[in-house]
């Protein structure tokens, strides 16, 4: 049984966390995540969610509480944005290194200095190498669905998951969302089984100092060194692709909605020009593609849903017929280009994909991104490629650059 409600992205995330019966919530307010922290407090104080809510004094502590509570065996949830996420940075590594199935919503926002409360994806993209799975949502339904899937993925691969969605564009915008029934979610999501238990019956020293090489335990068993543990995290991240795809498929069977696993495609069957992006810009690109097609350009969209693990095999398939690839990114790796651009080009290495890639930086600090602007950018790129100038320096769309 499922009912449809018109809700914001933050409401969708809060409802999803409640449907997943999270047992410990620790959060610290920051725009545009605050509403999510508030709704969860409301749930806990009014008794509609039976959880411990720790009203911490910082994001560093929010993630710490999640780490420790998850270690003792509770299902945990937190959410943050921008500087809050950066303040957690040390703990993001600690969570992944501890192999804990923590789920966190990242309500994407530009990072200071100078301050911006508005949306871009510099925050989550700059946490690429922390060992977290990163899912980017294109609309509020995907937020709901991805949080539920995130627990199932995290608790199978023992790696933490960030469910990212654009601040204001999704977090504060009302959209119709199917709310799944509690029983359906319960049957999709088995109870959390911790991999280590911190209990007086079995004293263990969790996350102590390690030496470079494997060492013998007192019982004579050769135990991992630091590097083996790192390899295992990398392996788990690589293997999580299968789990993400399977989870998405099983979710589609149970709930009737398919979010696409690692990526999703729109009108790509006969597309020669492929627009690609993450999050809500990817949804905007769908509108752009409709307009491009009306003007006679065979365009489609590949929405990158999972940024880590990077969908290498999936993009090689999805882009194989492209003659031109046009990216719209809400973040920049200073001194180089948009993060997605580098990743995609690396994924195309030694494939048959030789199409030119045009990279557009868009919408930083909340600057509006209109479908019409994407259409114009795409047309100018297609024109440039046709007239024999395939490569182009990263362009900043709708930005005064001189």
């Amino acid at each position, binding site marked *: 049984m499922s009912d449809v409600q018109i809700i914001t992205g933050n409401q969708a995330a809060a409802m999803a966390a409640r449907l997943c019966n999270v047992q410990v919530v620790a959060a610290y307010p920051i725009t545009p995540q605050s509403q999510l922290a508030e709704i969860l407090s409301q749930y806990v104080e009014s008794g509609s969610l039976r959880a411990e809510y*720790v009203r911490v*004094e910082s994001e560093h502590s929010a993630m710490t509480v999640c780490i420790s509570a998850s270690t003792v065996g509770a299902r945990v949830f937190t959410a943050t944005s921008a500087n809050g996420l950066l303040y957690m940075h040390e703990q993001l590594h600690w969570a992944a290194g501890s192999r804990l199935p923590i789920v966190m919503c990242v309500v994407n926002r530009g990072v200071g200095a100078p301050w911006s409360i508005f949306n871009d994806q510099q925050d989550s993209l700059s946490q690429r190498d922390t060992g977290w799975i990163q899912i980017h949502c294109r609309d509020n339904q995907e937020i709901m669905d991805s949080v539920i899937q995130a627990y199932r993925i995290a608790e199978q691969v023992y790696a933490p998951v960030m469910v990212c969605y654009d601040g204001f564009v999704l977090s504060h915008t009302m959209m119709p969302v199917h709310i799944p029934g509690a029983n359906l979610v319960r049957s999709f999501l088995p109870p959390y089984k911790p991999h280590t238990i*911190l209990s007086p019956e079995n004293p263990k020293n969790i996350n102590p*100092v*390690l030496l470079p090489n494997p060492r013998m335990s007192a019982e004579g068993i050769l135990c991992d060194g630091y590097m083996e543990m790192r390899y295992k995290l990398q392996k788990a991240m690589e293997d999580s692709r299968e789990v993400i795809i399977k989870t998405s498929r099983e979710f589609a069977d149970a709930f009737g909605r398919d979010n696409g696993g690692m990526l999703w495609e729109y009108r790509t069957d006969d597309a020669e020009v492929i627009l690609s992006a993450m999050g809500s810009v990817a949804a905007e690109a769908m509108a752009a593609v409709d307009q491009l097609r009306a003007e006679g350009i065979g365009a489609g969209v590949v929405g990158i849903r999972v940024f880590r693990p990077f969908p290498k095999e999936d993009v090689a398939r999805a882009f194989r017929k492209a003659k031109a690839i046009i990216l719209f990114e809400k973040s920049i790796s200073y001194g180089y280009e948009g993060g997605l651009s580098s990743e995609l080009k690396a994924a195309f290495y030694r494939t048959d994909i030789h199409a030119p890639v045009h990279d557009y930086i868009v919408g930083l600090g909340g600057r509006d991104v209109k479908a019409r602007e994407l259409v114009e950018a795409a047309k100018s790129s297609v024109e440039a490629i046709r007239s024999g100038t395939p490569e182009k320096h990263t362009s900043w769309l709708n930005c005064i650059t001189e």
Partner: protein
Amino acid sequence: MPENLFKMNAKEYILPGSRSCQGCGLSLAYRFALKALRENTIVTLPASCLCVLHGLYPNTSVNIPCLNCTFASTAASASGIVAGLNALNKTDTTVVAFAGDGGSFDMGIQSLSGAAERGTDFIYVSYDNEGYMNTGTQRSSATPMGALTTTTPVLTKQQHKKDFLKIMEAHDLPYAATTSPSYPIDLYEKFVKAKRIKGTRFIHIHVPCPPGWSYPTKDTVRIGRLAVETGIVVLFEVENGKLRFTGRSRTLAEKGNKLPIITYIERQGRFKKMSIEQLSQFQKWVDSRWNEFLRRAAN
């Protein structure tokens, strides 16, 4: 309450072969603390000498479950353990955070203040070897005036020690105490008492450190005692705002015969560059604190 060492819990929780230095005051303190806390305890601790004492993976010299955490996060880590145990209805376990002075007075202060303000049900222990010892004896805000450290190598520490107990008392704690491993019964009793109380309990332990303070390893207990005899360290407990001297500090207060600080200073290499001016400032600082304690205990 044990009136002598033989009436303490005889069980040992630190196995032979810990990685602390010879004569380590911390290892003594930890031994008696764990005896008082007993089995149903979970410890969380940050990067520190105590983290090293617990041993290198995969072996540990401590028979109590322990969760290591990052340097700034000890009290938040305890909060997470408490929240997780509550969520799972396991409420009879004592959760104890154990951090050094650096991990408490300096970097850990934010998460500690947060956890204490929330009234988190745990014991926070700040063991104080008066410097960042694990990283090579650098200055902390707990280092006393006039001490040489590797980051005050020429001029010595210019400031007095931070009065951390005052900061913790400002959180209106049900129980706060200071103790020293040179007085194991005092230490043991305070942990037994803290274990029975609900809410955030804070215990400060002054732990002499031979390599960091530069004195012979055989003198640890004596140095710890001299700190108390001179009134530099005052043994007391504050229960719901009421201060009470304990142990040796109580008899000193009654008899008024505390020693001049020079008897403590002169035995430690770290004070060898202390100026006469610093010595007299330090003495004044000790005397005025001592008088304040006397006033408070009389009320």
